[in-house]
């Protein structure tokens, strides 16, 4: 956990530094008496950098035995979610959702065919009838 904590703190510090770089590019107020669009974010980002440094120092000092392992499956699921969202724009919400549910159910260990077929279709019908027809929500 310790190494992971340090890495995460460094990432946060990097994020803050990047935001600082972006903030410095926002034009300053022409009138020194009136604070402009970049003033408040600049205060935030400097405070953020100080906090991130302290958190990094804490994560170096602390002693924990907890193990943090980033499950590689995480990237698989994020990947599936990305593909799902792209598929929606191509083949529509309903077909992509049925595919998504079947694939995820399979990955999560459901092997019974009736469950694999009925739940995705029932869910899609539910969305169609309740969300699209009754509530009239825009469906992607």
């Amino acid at each position: 956990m310790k190494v992971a904590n340090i890495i995460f703190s460094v990432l946060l510090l990097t994020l803050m530094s990047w935001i600082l770089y972006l903030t410095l590019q926002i034009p300053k107020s022409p009138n020194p008496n009136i604070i402009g669009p970049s003033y408040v974010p600049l205060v935030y980002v400097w405070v953020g950098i100080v906090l991130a440094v302290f958190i990094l120092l804490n994560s170096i000092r602390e002693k924990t035995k907890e193990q943090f392992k980033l499950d590689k499956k995480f990237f698989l699921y994020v990947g599936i979610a990305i593909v799902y969202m792209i598929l929606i724009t191509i083949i529509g919400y309903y077909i992509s959702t049925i595919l998504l549910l079947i694939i995820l159910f399979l990955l999560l260990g459901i092997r019974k065919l009736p469950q694999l077929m009925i739940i995705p279709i029932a869910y899609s019908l539910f969305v169609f009838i309740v969300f699209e027809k009754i509530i009239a929500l825009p469906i992607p």
Partner: protein
Amino acid sequence: MIENLIEAISIVFTLKMLLIILLGSFVGIIIGALPGLGPTVGTTLIIPATFGMEPTAALILLVAIYMTAEYGGSITAILISSPGTTAATATVEDGYPLTQKGYPGKALGASITASTIGGIFTTFILLFLTIPLMNFALKFGPAEYFALGFFGLSLVASLSGKSILKGLLMAILGLLISSIGLDPLTGQPRYTFGSFYLLEGISIIPALMGLYAVSEVFNMFLTQNNTIKKLGKKVSKQFITLKEFKSMLPVIFQSSFIGSFVGVIPGAGGSIASWIAYQQSKRIAKDKKDYGKGALSGVAAPEAANNATVGGALVPLLSLGIPGSPTTAVLLGALMLHGLTPGPKLMETDANLFYGLIIGLFITCIFMFFVGSLLTNFWVKLISLPQTFIAPIILSISVIGAFSVRNLMFDVYITLGFGVLGYFLKKFNFPLAPIVLALVLGGMMESNLRRALLISDGSWMIFLTNPISLILILIALFTFVSPILKNVFTSKKSKVS
């Protein structure tokens, strides 16, 4: 006030509204009972369904879910010792031993009774506290509003996590995210990377949906437990007796009182209230010897308290427009989507909304009692549903929700991005509540700060010469410094000893 309430009764007592409340109670209890999903996820997921409704109906539905989810959390806490919401953690202490002894019916009975009384109690608190606070806040100018935002945010940052540094950094991150888009005063684009979609900033609903719902979905995928603990015995239908009810009453009232007032404090929600109530109830409970071994009062105290926080939490939201918890931030987002800005002027423009909400909450508590107590066996079946079915469905509902706010796929990608961010932040023990609050309050804080400085010709003294803003800022600073001081003193003490 009486005429307004009578008028509100005629608005709420329509078949449509009653059905909405019934639906809300049902959905709320289910979402509350499912481990990992609480009132924040519940209200966020249901927001899209409220788009077509009038604001009053929408708010009542959301608050019904909020209220009943606080009860729902106790079902899983009692039956399988896995609290459905963080606010029900204290309920496990005495609720689960009762189940093990074979009295889950009594535990659930104590919980639903306490929740109902807590809910009704807090409705009155909401009714009587909001209007005076509104009248007080009518005089607020930009300096006071900035100080109020600063105060609320700093309390949330220091109370919501174990580490105050992490909480503060999350608040800063939220404030920076809220700065994305056109500058509110000059129209200068900030952090937009030339993207057209980012000019309006990050929409609150997709961000919340990502941080709370999608991150939890990933968590469920990776820690799937299909083998939910089987219930030992069949749930006995034996409900609490009148005598048991009477013996719990003092504890229920004390806890409702604690819950309502803890709820008002930004950052302190149901989980803090329920622990305080549980600890305090030990003093006055008639069955204090049984604490930890299955005391009915030990179930009633946290459950009355966590439902009682709901009305308390709505007080600052409605009267000042300042949410103090993630769930009230969702409600603020929902109200803004309906074109309403809560705050002191709400009464002039939408008095019916407020009184309708009061009546709606009252009916919600009644419905919650019946739905909760009559369908006990149904809840037991429901919680044995594996998360495997639920997580993928939540992911696809989130897509609809994120899309429907502006009809943009862009917002769906935002949701996924925040989902990944939320997953990592939770893994590394960074609290999410400060980001959400900062996201909601950031724009208002910055505009008020800059307006105040325009009024004072650039002098920062305006925040210190104004008594209300001075007090709020001092309390906020104190919340930052007090844990550090505490650390210094305790470490000195330990060195001495």
